[in-house]
């Protein structure tokens, strides 16, 4: 259900029952969840260096959205992009190798999870940077592949960057098929939305004449159904759209940097799709989860055994 334009309040945990997900959706949700959890474990075990930004709690967004996309649509992801990558390319091996700098890494270990290019999927590491690049891609698509769209994932914090406004302005002016997917999890690194954003996301979009839609559901089926006309309109009418998902980040920003009080995070966990789907169909869910957990564990073992990645084509 999409809420009408209103104030950007801190989203409240929802406990309403979710409709039954398709097998592939549930499997993908669980793959992403366990991939992220395994990653955090590897970091805390000191087996991976660098940084990572897990999307725990937000996995349903790409799972709901991507079946609506064509192969030829372009997805711009961000630093919190593992879910986006896995949903787009179903390639946990390549992703884990990339993050751990092992052979088979989707980008030979050079970009890491924040800077991945594969087919029509690209993640960027600087807030707002992707929005303008997405404008360029959308322009190309509008001219050469009518009907195709460019999706750009941003967060609530991204709206601090001027590039976002330049991009929206250009997209509306030039009538571009740009879909801005905002995962509004109420927090930008350690800063609550209320302390970094004046006004609302919806009002920002409206300022440029760009239709904005807000969703607070975690139900993959419901979201997909509501997103479908928006995605279609974006591509066919060449009309940029802002789709805002009210969601929660259940993990830290990267690792060890969650400044929220534990109870607050616990409260958010109550609205997690994981428990909702598990409670709705415990047997089915548990079997799927075991499969996912096992798959990820195997992948981790195999990947860590791989030799280091080689960067040749410089």
């Amino acid at each position, binding site marked *: 259900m999409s809420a009408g334009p209103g104030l950007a309040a801190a989203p409240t945990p929802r406990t309403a029952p979710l409709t039954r997900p398709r097998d592939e959706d549930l499997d993908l949700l669980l793959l992403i969840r366990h991939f992220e959890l395994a990653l955090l474990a590897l970091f805390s075990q000191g087996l991976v260096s660098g940084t990572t930004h897990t999307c725990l709690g937000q996995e349903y967004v790409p799972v709901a959205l991507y079946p609506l996309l064509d192969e030829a649509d*372009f997805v711009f992801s961000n630093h919190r992009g593992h879910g986006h990558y896995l949903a787009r390319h179903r390639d946990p091996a390549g992703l884990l190798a990339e993050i751990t700098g092992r052979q088979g*890494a*989707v*980008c*030979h*270990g*050079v*970009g890491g999870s924040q*800077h*991945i*290019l*594969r087919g029509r999927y*690209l993640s*960027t*590491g*600087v807030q*707002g*940077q992707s*929005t*303008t*690049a*997405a*404008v*360029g*891609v*959308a*322009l*190309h*698509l509008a*001219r*050469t592949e009518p009907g195709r769209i*460019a999706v750009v994932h941003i967060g609530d914090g991204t709206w601090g960057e*001027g*590039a976002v406004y*330049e*991009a929206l*302005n*250009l997209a509306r*002016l*030039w009538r571009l098929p740009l879909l801005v997917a905002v995962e509004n999890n109420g927090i930008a690194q350690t800063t609550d939305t209320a302390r970094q954003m004046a006004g609302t996301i919806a009002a920002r979009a409206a300022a440029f004449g760009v239709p904005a839609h807000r969703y607070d559901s975690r139900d993959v089926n419901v979201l997909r159904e509501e997103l479908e006309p928006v995605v279609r309109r974006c591509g066919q009418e060449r009309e940029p759209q802002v789709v805002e998902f009210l969601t929660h980040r259940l993990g830290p920003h990267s690792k060890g940097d969650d400044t929220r009080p534990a109870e607050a995070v616990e409260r958010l966990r109550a609205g997690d799709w994981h428990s909702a789907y598990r409670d709705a169909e415990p047997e089915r869910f548990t079997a799927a989860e075991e499969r996912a957990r096992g798959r990820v564990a195997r992948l981790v073992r195999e990947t860590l055994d791989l030799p280091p*990645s080689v*960067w040749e*084509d*410089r």
Partner: protein
Amino acid sequence: MTAATRATRVGEDLNRALHTVLERDPAAYFLGEDVADPYGGAFKIAAGLSSRFPDRVLSTPISEGGIAGAGAGLALMGDTAIVEMMFADFVTLALDHVLNFAGKSVAMYGRRVPMRLIVRCPTGGNRGYGPTHSQSLQKLFLGFPGINVFEVSPFHPNEALFETMLAAAEPCVLFEDKVLYTRPMFADGIVDDLLRYELLPGTPGGGPIARVFAVDDAPPDWVLLAPGGLTDRVCGALRSLLLDEELSCQALVPSRLYPFDLDPLLPLLAGARRICVVEDGTAGGSWGETVAQAVHRALWGALTAPVLTVHAAQLPIPAAGHLEREVLVQQTTIHSAVLEASR
């Protein structure tokens, strides 16, 4: 040259080259502020483009970052994107999109990704435009992997220049001195009654390097390296140093400033008694200093003195003409510096 042809001005030659690029490549785009006809851009370099190619020549809002990023997005999709900054000074607003996204995308995904993005920057002073419209910011782009810095000169035909840049398939920042726009292109090896030039082959990626010399082509006392924007002032200094001081000087004007191809020039530089690098920007992390350091490394044993560097003064560029001339490099600045160092 027949009587029917008139010496083409640099700005006209640039305009023609842009027409050619858009003509030959149906996937080439041109983005810039106020570039639509009849205005054709602040310096008229885009004249005629929007009329001929209305779908691909976009006059944009004042969004340097936005249009640089959009250009990068087009390049990512395999198109060619030429993005005009109205003044080089404003390229600072586009740095994230050019340096962090476009430049790095060439290699940061673990394999080479072609990115045909050209960011054009009208640069330089001596027109009284003041501190934020007169700078030479080549230094901002030195040393970034995947980023190439080129500069327009009256020796290098612009059609070939664009071919070189596009062949690189990497983001190129092209500096175009504003005063140079109205100066004539040189042809047939002639600068004037005293000075001639030839194009040394250089490297394929860097394009040819112009060598300017007096008609007698005497062994040089000094070799001056300078970007194309300083051509008039450097040639004037070559002339005055010869006629007034009997110093034989030659000049080298490269097309690509960075990466800088020193190797093809080493024999000539090794034969010079002294070497000088002249640039319009200030000292500090500058192109001139980069070249000087490269020369020191390559020719340490052969040099009799350090490479002389001539820069603008470390001050904001004044608007008033008489003050501007004190801050920016003039012909006399070069003449005096070389003469002083010759004593």
